[in-house]
């Protein structure tokens, strides 16, 4: 009896410790973003009156950051939609076809995700330069879709496996075309999966720094690139950096909190069956 109590306390202690360690930098960032500029460099425990000045500065000092926000929203949304439109039929095909090399194709598609950034960004940069579409939303969306689609195919494939084939068979017997059955029978059933998949798609584009750095230098600059701009040659604007960080990360957190269950299911789907 006594031993069980002690064990429980130790476990709770370690869980709390882990949560504090992993959550601390996030909480810290949030507090720092509300600190008045003059107090940023004071002792971390010093009292301060919260202010939104850093946020105003982040948007105000350079119009760059606001444009980056709209760029990021446009690029990430378009990427998500495009990757799902192209990716989910492919995932469906992979989950249903009898074709022998299907597993090889599935692995090859996943490997695209693992291609080092420069290996793909360099030729895309040169080709886009030739076509005159460098530093446009278009090239960013195209590039982000290529690296996002493999992820989407992989996760969606897992969700399609969970849907019994009989459903679409009966729809086809009732006179539906396969495409029709896919759109009006299968897709609605995978809505939770689609929600999780959209998150993955959005994150993969929203969080990217490498491709954005190379392909969107000015007009198509995204948030992760723009926030690096607060590190200037004459000094680092820490207040703006913390405010900018919160702006970049907050929507992601809200998303995750909303669909956490599906997010975790999608994440572990490929690896853990059942």
């Amino acid at each position, binding site marked *: 009896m006594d031993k069980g109590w002690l064990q429980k306390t130790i*476990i709770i202690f*370690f*869980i*709390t410790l*882990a*949560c504090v*360690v*992993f*959550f601390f*930098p*996030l909480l*810290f960032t949030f507090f*720092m973003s509300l600190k008045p500029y003059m107090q940023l460099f004071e002792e*971390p425990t010093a009292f301060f009156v919260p202010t939104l000045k850093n946020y105003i500065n982040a948007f105000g000092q350079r119009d760059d950051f606001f444009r980056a926000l709209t760029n990021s929203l446009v690029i990430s949304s378009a990427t998500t939609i495009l990757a799902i439109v*192209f990716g989910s039929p*492919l995932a469906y095909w992979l989950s249903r*076809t009898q074709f022998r090399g299907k597993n090889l194709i599935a*692995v090859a*598609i996943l*490997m*695209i995700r*693992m*291609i*080092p*950034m*420069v*290996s793909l960004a*360099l*030729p*895309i940069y*040169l*080709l886009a330069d030739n076509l005159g579409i460098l530093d446009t939303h278009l090239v960013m969306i*195209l590039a982000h879709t290529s690296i996002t*689609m493999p992820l989407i*195919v992989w996760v969606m494939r897992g969700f399609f496996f969970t849907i019994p084939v009989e459903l679409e068979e009966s729809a086809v017997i009732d006179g539906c*075309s*396969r495409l029709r059955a896919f759109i009006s029978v299968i897709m609605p059933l995978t809505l939770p999966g689609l929600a999780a998949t959209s998150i993955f798609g959005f*994150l993969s584009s929203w*969080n*990217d*720094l*490498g491709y954005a*750095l*190379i392909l969107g230098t000015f007009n198509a600059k995204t*948030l*992760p690139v723009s*926030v690096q701009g607060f*590190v200037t040659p004459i000094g680092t604007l*820490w207040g703006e*950096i913390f405010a900018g*960080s919160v702006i*970049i*990360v907050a929507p*992601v957190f809200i998303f*995750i909190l909303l669909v956490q269950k599906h*997010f975790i299911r999608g994440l*572990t789907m490929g*690896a*853990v069956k*059942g």
Partner: protein
Amino acid sequence: MKKIRKKRFLNSMFIFFIPGTLYLLVTVIYPLLYSLQLSFTSWNLVRPEIEPSFVGLENFIWVFTQSGFWWNLLRTFYFVVLAISLEILLGFLLALLLNREFYGKKLSRTLLTLPMVMTPGVVGLIWKWIYNPEFGIINYFMSLFGADPVSFLGNPDTAMLALVLVDVWQMTSFMFLMMLAGLQGVPQELYDSSSIDGASGWQRLINVIIPVLKPVILIAAMIRTMEGFRIFDLVYVLTEGGPSNSTEVISLKAYNIAFRQFEMGRAAAYSYVIVGIMIFIGLVYGRYLQKSERLYSG
């Protein structure tokens, strides 16, 4: 009759295959082939008026003999081995801790999930402050104990370890979630039967939990190893490869060749060598995975 129907069935499946594949062919395979061709040419964008000229294997020879490739590879390897083994260990411990019912389980799982979805470029900036020798939080705590300030990122001896720590902070969440899902897949009967047999906690861990979890650990480790070998964002923001190249990992080097020296041919060759390494890792893990699954299914 049946054959015809089967054929029609397969034909109608084909339309699902076409659009996605076509997209990847145009935006991934074609650029990769273009860069393969590029890797056999000499072309510097600083002087674009000089057309690319065919140089055979010269770029690849340059990569292996003169670019410092082996050092960069070793550094990357060091980073990956250290970071991934720490992540596996911590992730596993956390998963064991949280694989039970307790008040606040959902909240703690959420808190532990958040780091992995954060933008690496932002994570880098935040940790740059945390590590800062003058006003960073770590040095503040150390100063409470009377220690002198340490420039973690400015010292070649500690910079790589500092990078590893950030990666561990961010990506342990991933390992944890994978392993928690794996643990929840362990059938309750296995626990029950092993406790009837009088197995101690340790025996159960080694004989029941780890074998069942092995495929999950392998897959998670494979994904993380590959991501580790292509790490770019975090290094670019935190150290830019410095101080004195101590954190120059291979993908950062490839970026530098391409976009600081503008040697397009060499960069293409370099990045193809990295692709080769990635394929090699995939094959090694794939073999292990096959073996462990075969053992597992008897």
